[in-house]
């Protein structure tokens, strides 16, 4: 019991991140409305970003901007600063997410112009009829 609680406290963050990812993934797979699918896609991407950012976290450390006074004394210790690498990666990932979002919405607008609806089953119905 004690071990399980310990595990829960150490890992519950990861579990919530994965839950979020799965919510997004479910949205992409199972939703019928195209804009809803796009929302699901964005949730999925953002949850992955959250997972990455949490990797860089160090308890007891501060944000990765080196203070000049410390530098002049020649003691910059990596332990005192949060790992900047995941942040950099995730800046890129956020940009990718917003780019995908823009293109996907443009496509959704085009689909709506053509079929007059955003529901996937109604669109497929129209295609089958023609």
């Amino acid at each position: 019991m004690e071990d399980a609680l310990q595990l829960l406290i150490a890992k519950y963050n990861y579990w919530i991140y994965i839950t979020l990812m799965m919510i997004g993934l479910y949205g992409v797979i199972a939703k019928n409305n195209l804009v809803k699918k796009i929302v699901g896609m964005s949730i999925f991407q953002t949850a992955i970003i959250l997972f990455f950012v949490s990797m860089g976290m160090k308890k007891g450390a501060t944000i990765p901007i080196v203070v000049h006074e410390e530098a002049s004394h020649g003691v910059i210790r990596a332990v005192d600063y949060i790992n900047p690498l995941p942040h950099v990666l995730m800046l890129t990932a956020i940009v990718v997410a917003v780019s995908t979002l823009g293109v996907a919405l443009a496509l959704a607008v085009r689909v709506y112009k053509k079929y007059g609806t955003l529901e996937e089953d109604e669109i497929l119905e129209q295609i089958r009829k023609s």
Partner: protein
Amino acid sequence: MKILGLVIVTLTGAVLIWATGEFPGWGDPNSPASLHVSPRYIEKTLEETSVPNAVTSVLADYRGYDTMFETTVIFAAGVSCFMLLRLFAGQEPEAVHYRHLLTGLTLRVRRRKESLEELEEFERMDSLWTPHDIILRTLCRFLIPFIQLFALYVIAHGHHSPGGGFQGGVILGASLILLAIAQDMRSALDRVRERTLAMLSALGVSVYAGTGALCLLLGSNFLDYAALAKVIWVDPVGARSLGIFLVEVGVGMAVMATMILIYHNLASEGRLDEGL
């Protein structure tokens, strides 16, 4: 589809959670992620690039190649939206609406023999009724310069504080999007033409890639900003810092122009008329 989705999601989630058992604890300072590669970035950033913000130095220098493509991604998205949505052969409508700004009256002009657009007190409208929000307009007029100033600060001060080209560019773009929402897209486009936007976005990314190519021409590796020391009379470390600033400006330009381009095309379905 719903059941299939649920099954896939549960399975994937279970597999992913099963693997977390081996992860280092959340926020563990001794995890491999914080021990192997990243300490160098923190310990050497001042010494090697003279940029205190480790995120900026890693973003624009150590992994600057990633960032170049990050900017390219957003450029590609802007070009894609433009290409997918923009309508060129616009049918000229038979009747055009104008609003008399002083009285708020709407005129419907059937045949546009003489254009009213030159006259100061008239404003073109697309739908029959759009609200004439004097408070909103005046307030945005006041706000926008400050937003833009802040954006420029964010770009310029990215070396020492959170922020940088990307964030600043987005804020700069958002200020013009705000103008397009609060007034209408036509007056926003009067300030910055579509052609200017397209040129700016291409120019911004070219500044980034061009800085890298300049280093190549100066005999170093691609994106090795230290090579710039040969042309600007500073030491290599200062040249790195300057190179980072240069590419941040490029990123800011590209991101600003692209965000506005995407918004304009999305919000008017490519007609670039009144917008929302």
